């Protein structure tokens, strides 16, 4: 036994980790089940680099600098380059990194499940997302109705669908239009809408104002809105998805706009991801989704916070 192994902080660490064991077991089983779901649907599992020269330019997503490049904030750009090169169904489970994101449901290093599918749109992904979660529950031997923080969660399909406009009408103290004008969209979504949605059934919140979707295709039937959705389960934001924008001119213009806003706010201005833009015209009509694995584990293990579902938090290192 090494010296110091009996000091109180070491004892506390061993106790904390031992208490996490059921969650970490569920986590391991969940990732296996996810892989099983996608491989049996002929998806190809891919790995793309974590260390990249140019992250996607989004105003509110801050990449962590690493040497001359950055740690990726999501595998989006590399996965789309694969999509453009003739990989029509791909998925990845990977670590992603975002500067300054730490809260009861946020970690600066977290695990994302991201998948892309050609010849479908965001509506197709809603269904596949439902199927995936139900499949995972069955593989884990969990019932479709679960207890989460004293409330019943009913994960049986189909789940609910709600437009952002409807959500504002139903739960917010102001209209979507006024929230956009006053720059209070995020605040109202986070504090007035989120706590009220996603139970007992999960809900797909869709049709985001076009200004809030840097890489999504604009809706054909709902002008001013993007074909983007966020999945909420018991007030927890679990996934973000959209029909992919495939127009390189439009995409470059949006990146430039985001970068200009970043510059204005004194944030790091990322290099333009030129290789991604060059390959974009070859990308088929497709849709992609990113789902927070840590949060899905939280929901299925009835944990209110993210800390108990990861082996170590940054503060524990």
């Amino acid at each position, binding site marked *: 036994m090494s010296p110091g192994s009996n000091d109180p902080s070491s004892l506390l660490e061993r106790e904390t980790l031992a208490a996490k064991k059921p969650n970490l077991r569920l986590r391991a089983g969940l990732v296996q089940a996810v892989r099983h779901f996608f491989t049996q649907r002929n998806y190809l599992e891919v790995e793309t680099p974590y260390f990249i020269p140019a992250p996607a330019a989004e105003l*509110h997503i801050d990449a962590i600098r690493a040497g001359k490049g950055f740690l990726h904030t999501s595998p989006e750009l590399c996965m789309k380059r694969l999509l453009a090169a003739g990989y029509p169904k791909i998925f990845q489970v990977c670590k992603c990194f975002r500067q*300054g*994101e730490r809260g009861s449901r946020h970690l600066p290093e977290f695990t994302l499940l991201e998948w892309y599918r050609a010849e479908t749109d965001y509506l197709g992904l809603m269904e596949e997302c439902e199927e995936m979660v139900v499949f995972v529950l069955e593989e884990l031997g969990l019932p479709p109705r679960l207890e989460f923080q004293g409330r019943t969660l009913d994960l049986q399909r189909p789940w609910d669908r709600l437009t952002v406009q409807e959500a504002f009408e139903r739960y917010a103290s102001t209209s979507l239009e006024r929230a956009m004008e006053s720059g209070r969209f*995020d*605040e109202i979504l*986070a*504090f007035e809408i989120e706590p009220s949605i996603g139970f007992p059934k999960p809900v797909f919140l869709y049709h985001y104002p076009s200004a*809030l979707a840097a890489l999504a295709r604009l809706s054909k039937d709902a002008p001013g809105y993007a074909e983007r959705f966020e999945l909420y389960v018991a007030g927890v934001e679990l996934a*973000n998805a959209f029909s992919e924008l495939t127009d390189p001119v439009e995409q470059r213009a949006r990146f430039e706009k985001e970068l200009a806003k970043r510059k204005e706010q004194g944030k790091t201005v990322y290099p333009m991801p030129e290789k991604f833009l060059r390959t974009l015209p070859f990308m088929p009509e497709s849709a992609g989704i990113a789902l927070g694995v840590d949060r899905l584990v939280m929901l299925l293990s009835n944990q209110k916070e993210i800390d108990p579902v990861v082996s170590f938090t940054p503060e524990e290192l």
Partner: protein
Amino acid sequence: MYNASNLRKGLKILIDKEPYVVVDFQFTKPGKGQALYRCKLRNMINGIMLDRTYRSVDSFESANLEQRKMQYLYSQEGHFHFMDLQTYDQSALSAEQVGDAKNYLIDNLEVDVLLFDGRPIGLTLPNFVDLLVTRADPWAKGDSVAGDSKPITLETGYTLRVPPFIEEGIKITVDTRTGEYVTRVK
């Protein structure tokens, strides 16, 4: 200068030219949206609580606060007077600013006085203070309502419950954080 990403429990910032301490803090960030920092803040001068939500673009000035070791001298007309142990300068705190700490203020007690822009706004007591028992009735045996304790009065006028063996004229140690009896001073 701080920005919103520096917000933490215990951080002291300036709002409308007054010092506030962050007592509760919650980070959230709706999908692809901006980071939101929901804070409960306490005004360090008047104790009033404030709820505020900040965004990543918000910035704050740090409050010019300083702790000084001072000795309690005397109280007069609702003010409590202290002497800085380094500079020998005297400062006064109002009864409101001193609050329950008056229960422990005995002559020559060393405390930390908090200064904001050089003005005293509050104090921190030592965790344990020894105080003289000035009044203690003999314990009435069989007083089952009172259990195994009895009320006494200390030299500062503070009354509390202690074990029955505590008598007038002895000193006891009190925990200033809880206001409770700790031990008899030998």
